[in-house]
């Protein structure tokens, strides 16, 4: 068990919880957060330094609302880190980061780790409105924003901006994306069309976190162990990507029904 060491309220519905403990991890990996007598759910690491790590949570249902209302010194359980994480860019790469909403959380430590002198980065971040954009002051480099209501940056989708950047002559060789699955699928399609390698981070209902119970299987891939990050070569064969997911019972349903699921 760990004590919550601090909390940063990012906006009315997002908060980052910090813990004083060192974790050896790769950007894109996740932990299982246990709030005793409530539940246990997966969250990607959104910041990691020598003796401290953080997870950023969007308030959605019962569990995540409880999580963002945790206070300093509250005790929670942390298992992990689990999963594969992103494959980091190499010196000389030109990459685009495409994040929707809380999807910036797993991509933020990737941005921290990259040597910005050696890798050219275009970062596109979208949200409902300007209040919901994450980590506005965390990064020094230029970012491209878009909002559903036009309150900041481009009014519309992150995929519009990605297409625009490509049309402007940017030759990306890697795209990293996290956000709603339909958005990631669109990003993947754009990448396929332009022959760019793409990495997406998937969400499925999870139990063990270490590839044993099979709750999170997506076709033949075990999302908690083989993923949550999948590259273009696997996505091409993944029939369930942007189509279906398993509910807690193991029943396979359309993705819309999966994301419409609410804790009874």
């Amino acid at each position: 068990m760990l004590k919550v060491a601090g909390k940063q309220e990012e906006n009315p519905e997002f908060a980052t919880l910090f813990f004083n403990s060192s974790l050896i991890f790769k950007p894109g990996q996740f932990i299982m957060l246990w709030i005793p007598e409530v539940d246990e759910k997966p969250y990607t690491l959104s910041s990691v330094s020598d003796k401290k790590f953080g997870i950023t949570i969007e308030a959605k249902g019962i569990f995540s609302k409880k999580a963002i209302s945790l206070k300093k010194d509250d005790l929670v359980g942390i298992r992990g880190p689990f999963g594969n994480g992103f494959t980091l860019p190499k010196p000389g790469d030109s990459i685009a980061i495409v994040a929707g909403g809380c999807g910036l959380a797993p991509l933020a430590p990737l941005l921290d780790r990259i040597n910005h002198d050696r890798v050219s980065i275009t970062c596109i971040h979208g949200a409902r409105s300007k209040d919901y954009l994450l980590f506005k002051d965390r990064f020094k480099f230029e970012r491209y924003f878009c909002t559903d209501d036009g309150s900041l940056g481009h009014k519309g989708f992150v995929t519009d901006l990605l297409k625009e950047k490509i049309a402007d002559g940017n030759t990306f060789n890697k795209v990293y994306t996290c956000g709603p699955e339909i958005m990631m699928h669109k990003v993947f399609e754009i990448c396929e069309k332009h022959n760019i390698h793409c990495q997406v981070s998937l969400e499925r209902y999870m139990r063990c976190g270490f590839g044993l119970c099979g709750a999170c299987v997506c076709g033949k891939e075990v999302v908690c162990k083989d993923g949550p990050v999948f590259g273009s070569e696997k996505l091409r064969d993944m029939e369930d990507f942007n189509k279906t997911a398993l509910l807690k019972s193991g029943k396979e349903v359309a993705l819309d029904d999966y994301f419409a699921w609410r804790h009874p």
Partner: protein
Amino acid sequence: MSIQFLDTTLKNTTVLASGILGNNKDILERVYNNGCALVTMKSIGPEPRDGHNNPTVIDLGHGIINAVGLPTPGYTNMEKEWKDLETRDFPLSASIYGGSVEEYARVAEFVSKQKPDMIEVNISCPNSEKHGMTFGVHAKSAHEVVSAVKKVTNVPLIAKLTPQALNIAEIAKACEDAGADAICAINTVGPGMVIDIESGMPVLDFKKGGLSGPMIKPVAIRCVYDIYKAVKIPIIGLGGISTGEDAIEMIMAGATLTGIGSAVKTRGINVFGLVTKEMTRWLDRHNSTIDSIRGAAH
């Protein structure tokens, strides 16, 4: 190392335990392609059931404690999975459970129409209030369940037993008398409990859970040893196997096949291929065969 088991030819002795990965055809096929001879589906029940809230599966280092709680879409809500499985080219065992003798029979009748190569009757799960294990601790109820299932299907039947029975050999004999074609032993041990001493809370949401992995191997070996003495039908020995040497030990206790569950965590999906290779190496080094060491401990 080809083995004949209940009318099916298997490429080696390894079996994927029920409740491990087996949630769709693609993953079952991947396990088969990683060296597993017989794959078992996650236990299928009569009604949709979510199972318990997390935490449900915790790694204790020397094994696993779990209270997943028998989640199931329910046997009638699996059209796509059954359809996908029609075109499989690997041996399949379908695990089933119920909350009453009548439910076991109902699920078995439906499932047998989907043509699995065998049906495993789970009368041994400790993680539900009213399903499973209650039927596996008494010879009379075990006999009732297996007889009822046998009446509605021609698919070969495996009875999966719990080590919680006072006399597991007696339960195995009752299942054999009721028409079981094989025994699978063991399901998880317990239930046990693990308490987090910082919060003073049990680590599982359901509080109690079944134990598996290396820490239960001696119990599994003893159970298979006792069952081998009591029945003539073949045994799938399961519980704590992670290496070829573990599997050899299980066969010496009397098992024909060797099931693997928790070791998928420690050694990965290719544990089946690894275990088979290690068994072959051991047998070669000892100038032995599977048939010659089966039951050697007796």
